[in-house]
């Protein structure tokens, strides 16, 4: 497909506490063995897009570590392939320390690379939405309906919270966007289409829109391009009807992970292959005396205790007599004998020693930082 994918690996509106202290949003682990970036890249690759740039801001060490040369996503290519655009500063000339003034500024500072791509279209995405989407369909409709910009949106389902800082749009009956506003508090409403942070437009249009906005000192893509120009440009909505996950808070992170325990939701998210880094771990091992129910388990785990309603990343060890409930346990964490965990999120390489108890609440899970020993 004739498009360049651009991923913003960070979000300006997230509060994932300890989880993003040591990593950028896109490399936050999700769904057992994945990182958020895996879902974003797989959408591109499954739609035939093999030219992808990732705009990074800070904390992106774990992201580059995860992606390597992009082999596992089939993105080690001569034409296109994966490019990580890191912020840079030239002493004395520009001394920005990785703090872009906004999304438009980030695009502007990455223009040297974007301009080089041979693609005619760009497909932008943020890192706070996980879904399975076919960009081929979005682009087809974008061209068919002669849109200037296509905005992917969703009609929030019953009971789904629209987080604050989400962009809400209003459209006419032909899905033409005529208004965009930021949500300012967590609300539950179904009549307000919410932006999913994915946009399709011609690359040449993006280049000129960015140059224009920068000239006027405007830096926010939603506000200064979509909202400001929706009267002049043909900005159309594209409804994403299937499940999506929104990651901006710790409790949201917990809830969205847990949704994967529903078979129907798993089918929607894993409709097409989701690629991730290969670790060559051994198959998961369930020892004599283990009890596991309603859980997701990744390769390399060794379970001797009890695991209920939980999600385990690769290489997690659960000792004899330990009881793990409603928890998310990330890579290579070890839970020793007779530990009790409930509503906890344990980051990578944590050790929880014998007989400890960690109990959080659904609305405020305990989060244990990477490499802690408890």
């Amino acid at each position: 497909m004739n498009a360049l994918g651009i991923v913003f690996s960070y979000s300006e509106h997230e509060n994932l506490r300890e989880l993003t202290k040591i990593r950028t949003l896109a490399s936050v682990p999700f769904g057992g063995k994945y990182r958020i970036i895996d879902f974003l890249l797989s959408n591109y690759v499954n739609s035939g897009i093999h030219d992808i740039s990732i705009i990074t801001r800070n904390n992106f060490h774990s992201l580059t570590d995860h992606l390597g040369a992009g082999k596992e996503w089939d993105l080690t290519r001569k034409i296109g392939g994966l490019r990580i655009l890191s912020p840079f500063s030239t002493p004395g000339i520009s001394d920005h320390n990785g703090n872009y003034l906004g999304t438009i500024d980030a695009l502007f500072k990455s223009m040297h690379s974007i301009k080089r791509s041979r693609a005619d279209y760009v497909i932008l995405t943020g890192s706070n939405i996980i879904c399975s989407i076919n960009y081929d369909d979005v682009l087809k409709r974008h061209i068919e309906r002669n849109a200037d910009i296509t905005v992917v949106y969703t009609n929030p389902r019953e009971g789904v919270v629209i987080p604050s800082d989400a962009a809400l749009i209003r459209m006419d009956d032909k899905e033409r966007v005529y208004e965009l506003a930021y949500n300012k508090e967590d609300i539950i409403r179904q009549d307000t289409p919410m932006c999913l942070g994915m946009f399709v437009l011609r690359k040449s249009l993006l280049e000129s829109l960015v140059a224009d906005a920068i000239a006027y000192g405007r830096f926010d893509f939603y506000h200064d391009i979509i909202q400001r120009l929706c009267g002049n440009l043909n900005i159309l909505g594209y409804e994403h009807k299937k499940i999506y996950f929104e990651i901006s808070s710790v409790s949201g992170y917990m809830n969205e992970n847990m949704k994967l325990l529903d078979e129907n939701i798993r089918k929607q998210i894993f409709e097409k292959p989701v690629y991730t880094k290969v670790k060559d771990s051994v198959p998961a091992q369930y020892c004599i005396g283990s009890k596991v129910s309603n859980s997701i388990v990744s390769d390399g785990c060794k379970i001797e205790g009890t695991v209920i309603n939980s999600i385990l990343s690769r290489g997690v060890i659960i000792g004899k007599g330990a009881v793990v409930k409603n928890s998310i346990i990330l890579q290579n964490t070890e839970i020793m004998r007779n530990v009790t965990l409930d509503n906890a999120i344990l980051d990578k390489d944590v050790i929880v020693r014998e007989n400890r108890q960690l109990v959080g609440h659904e609305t405020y899970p305990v989060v244990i930082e990477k490499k802690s020993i408890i």
Partner: protein
Amino acid sequence: MYYEKKKEMIAMLLAGGQGSRLGILTNHVAKPAVPFGGKYRIIDFTISNCVNSGIDTIGVLTQYRPLELNAYIGNGQPWDLDRLFGGITILPPYMKANAGEWYKGTANAIYQNIEYIEMNHPTYVLILSGDHIYKMNYQMMLEYHIEKNADCTIAVLNVPLEEASRFGVMNADETLKIYEFEEKPLQPKSTLASMGVYIFNWEKLKSYLVADEADKKSENDFGKNILPNMLEAGENMYAYEYKGYWKDVGTVESLWEANMDLLNPEVPIELNDPPWKIYSRNATLPPQYIGNNAKLNNVTISEGCSIDGEIENSIIFPGVTIKEGAAIRNSILMPGVTVGNHSTIEYTIIAADTVIGSNVCMGACAMPVEPGRHPEISVIGQGITIADGTVIPPGAMIGESILQKEGE
């Protein structure tokens, strides 16, 4: 400017055998490509041994049903063998100017690929077969070979005397210099059994291969011709004793046993060994889901599985679905198998993509088992369907779909 390209040692991996003793398991694939150990194929062990021993040039000689094996190996990337110089190369038999023939024997297969070997200018050549399960450092064997100033070093295993007659047996002196070689002797004089792993000085081996090819009466086999000829000519041949776990998985019984060994903590084959990983081509599948009704006891399960039944002492490959009420014991379920509700499966190997209906009773269901012995292993072929309510006795080998319960 020109750089000379040279490798110290390259490996030639014999992977052409059909493995007919595995019955319907090798109907669609060559033996080295048969799934093993929950996510691997048999050949992964030998390839990973090479890579972990620092060997980055491997020729894989294929002949029988090579398609799946070729696709599996691909460019060798999963084993880190996508190299600028070297890497893994599939070597099927090919046509020459005015001839062209199948590989007549193990030695002939190497003979036909002399050109490939010469391209890499190796000093030593390691000959391997792709149908054994073991972890071995070939670099240590090479050091031994060099230290002994040998022309040929043969890796051997100390086996019980009563089993030695199944192997090529080395009779060696106290320095492990071999003075006699017997292929499957009725009355073995030694317990040093050949593992089919040889290191040769390449120039020496080449001359014997050429001479052997000229001998019209030869069977062109390493064990029957090359090794005895070298011994007779007084070449320096040494045995190299290997002491770890090694298993030939040439029969249904031994394939089942070797899989079960992985579940037995007493058996010294640990796959979770970060410095000596066994690499394999990964299926891109979501993590496994364990349902509310699952009971798992001494089981390994891979990616993409969805498990809601009871499983004991079994190996479950990627993408397997086991529905509620199903019971699996002492069995091996290869990739993509589905087992319906309330089916019982015991002592069975089920090949890839087979669909088992509901209320099926397979293998030794609820039969009393004598301690230390087990019922015969049943084998269900690849990509077939077994209808609801079917009963399959122990030791059966089913290669065709059973679409209707008997008597209906």
